């Protein structure tokens, strides 16, 4: 998001916060969020796709709601209102094609109204069919939805598959297929959308999902402050604030305003300055000596933190304006004395998500089977989790290595602390020695994380390895 977009959103959020304090809360926030996800979607070289992708985001969400909602929820009066609002706005946006208002609310000229009506009809019929599902098949359908979300995710994160998809779209829409590139498709917010939908699908399966009206569910998934940058809230937590703001409007404006300013400062002053000297694939080959290489690496290490946590502050601040407290995503991650605590405090909502829906079920299954040793179980589950988190950034070798780096780090740290815990307790060392040990731990952890970013930044692992050699003066 650009600073202009953020300021427009801030103005809008302050206005919405005031308007929605007492009534029409869900309807207005839903209206704003639907409009904004079209507005924020970047323009794409593939014709009309930048209109269809936000439409798909909404369509998927509606289908997921139909799958997860209880029958009573489905037939409530509000359902019709929310559906009417959503359809109405998409059609209104589509109409800008004919009103000479294009490029105002959508990135490019919307497709012809007939195509949009067809797509909306498909989603609507799909939703109706899903409501007629027999209860016996509902679990199968939930799994199918889960698989579909993961499949789209894999396509979007694999450069070779994006290229194929881009070719396909170009042939379908009548553009030159030879111009297809693996950077053609940027589906704004898809990965966070998928996380939220999978969360509701899995919680539905375990019977823990609260009842959500269509409007509430949609607003939760495409809520504009956190749509594209997180944090990933949990539905049951989110709807509390959606149904009833916790604080007074005045307090929300003050707290949110402070948070927004902090975020703007972190992102646009600190992070953007550090970006000028931060490691990137090109500068990694240009550094002339080890000292220079370390400066590049540390600059990147702080840049990615201030960039991401700055955006998170902005999201939290905007959400506060409309009376919703989003969860924290970063809590001093670089000041943690070990890697486990780093991951408890870095992109918290993402790691929580992976813990809830991958790590814990995986460990539970391994524990119950009792076929492998504790050490082996820890190694396997740490590696599997961290590799998955790595691959979430893209299905490429460098992200795999980054995941492996952290998985192994967590494993070694787990074994070490298991060994040291007993001995340190026995030695009952002085508090001063503990302080020194803790500072040493912070430095070690920080540098381990910083070195890990090498794999993250440099797409080619060979080039990444050469940069690591340069850091140690061995290149």
């Amino acid at each position: 998001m650009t600073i202009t977009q953020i300021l427009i959103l801030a103005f809008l959020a302050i206005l919405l916060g005031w308007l929605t304090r007492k009534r029409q809360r869900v309807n207005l926030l839903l209206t704003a969020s639907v409009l904004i996800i079209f507005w924020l979607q970047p323009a794409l070289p593939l014709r009309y796709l930048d209109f269809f992708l936000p439409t798909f985001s909404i369509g998927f969400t509606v289908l997921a709601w139909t799958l997860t909602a209880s029958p009573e929820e489905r037939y409530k009066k509000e359902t019709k209102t929310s559906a009417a609002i959503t359809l109405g706005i998409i059609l209104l946006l589509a109409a800008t094609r004919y009103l000479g208002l294009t490029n105002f609310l959508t990135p490019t000229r919307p497709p012809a109204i007939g195509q949009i009506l067809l797509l909306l009809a498909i989603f609507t019929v799909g939703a109706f069919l899903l409501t007629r599902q027999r209860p016996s098949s509902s679990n199968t359908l939930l799994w199918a939805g889960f698989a579909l979300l993961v499949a789209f995710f894999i396509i979007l994160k694999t450069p070779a598959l994006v290229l194929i998809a881009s070719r396909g779209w170009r042939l379908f829409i009548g553009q030159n297929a030879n111009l297809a590139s693996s950077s053609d498709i940027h589906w704004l917010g898809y990965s966070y959308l998928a996380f939220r939908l999978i969360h509701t699908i899995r919680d539905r399966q375990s019977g823990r999902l609260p009842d959500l009206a269509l409007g509430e569910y949609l607003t939760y998934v495409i809520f504009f402050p956190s749509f594209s940058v997180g944090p990933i809230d949990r539905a049951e937590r989110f709807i509390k604030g959606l149904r009833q703001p916790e604080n007074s409007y005045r307090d929300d404006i003050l707290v949110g305003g402070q948070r927004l300013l902090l975020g703007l400062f972190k992102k646009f002053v600190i992070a953007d300055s550090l970006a000028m000297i931060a490691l990137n694939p090109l500068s990694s080959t240009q550094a002339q000596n080890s000292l220079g290489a370390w400066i590049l690496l540390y600059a990147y290490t702080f840049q990615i933190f201030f960039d991401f946590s700055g955006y998170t502050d902005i999201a939290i601040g905007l959400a506060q304006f409309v009376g919703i407290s989003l969860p924290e995503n970063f809590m001093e991650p670089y000041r943690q004395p070990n890697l486990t605590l780093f991951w408890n405090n870095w992109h918290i909502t993402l790691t929580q998500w992976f813990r809830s829906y991958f790590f814990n079920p995986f460990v539970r299954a391994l524990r119950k089977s009792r076929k492998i040793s504790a050490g082996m179980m820890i190694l396997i589950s740490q590696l599997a989790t961290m590799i998955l988190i790595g691959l979430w950034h893209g299905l490429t070798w460098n992200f795999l290595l980054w995941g492996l780096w952290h998985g192994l780090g967590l494993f070694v740290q787990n074994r070490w602390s298991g060994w040291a815990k007993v001995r340190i307790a026995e030695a009952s060392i002085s508090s001063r020695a503990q302080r020194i040990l803790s500072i040493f731990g912070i430095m070690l952890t920080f540098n381990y994380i910083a070195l890990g970013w090498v794999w993250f930044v440099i797409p080619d692992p060979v080039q990444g390895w050469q940069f690591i050699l340069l850091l140690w003066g061995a290149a």
Partner: protein
Amino acid sequence: MSDMISTLNTFIADEILKQPGRTFAANEALISSGLIDSFSLMDLALFVEDTFGVQIDDTELNADTFDTLEALSEIIQSRS
């Protein structure tokens, strides 16, 4: 209540931290402080399920749901 807390205390001290005899305040942070890691947390959940017959879901194994012995025992009581 205090029985339950002391049972949990003993399990955490003996089996998880391997520091028999260590005691925790009922409101001492166990998870957010890093005392109990994510593997031990699963052990704790399985122990609770076996001992008290109460299901703790995978999505609940975090400091937000319970961070202290007090909070854990409240969850157990509310479900048993």
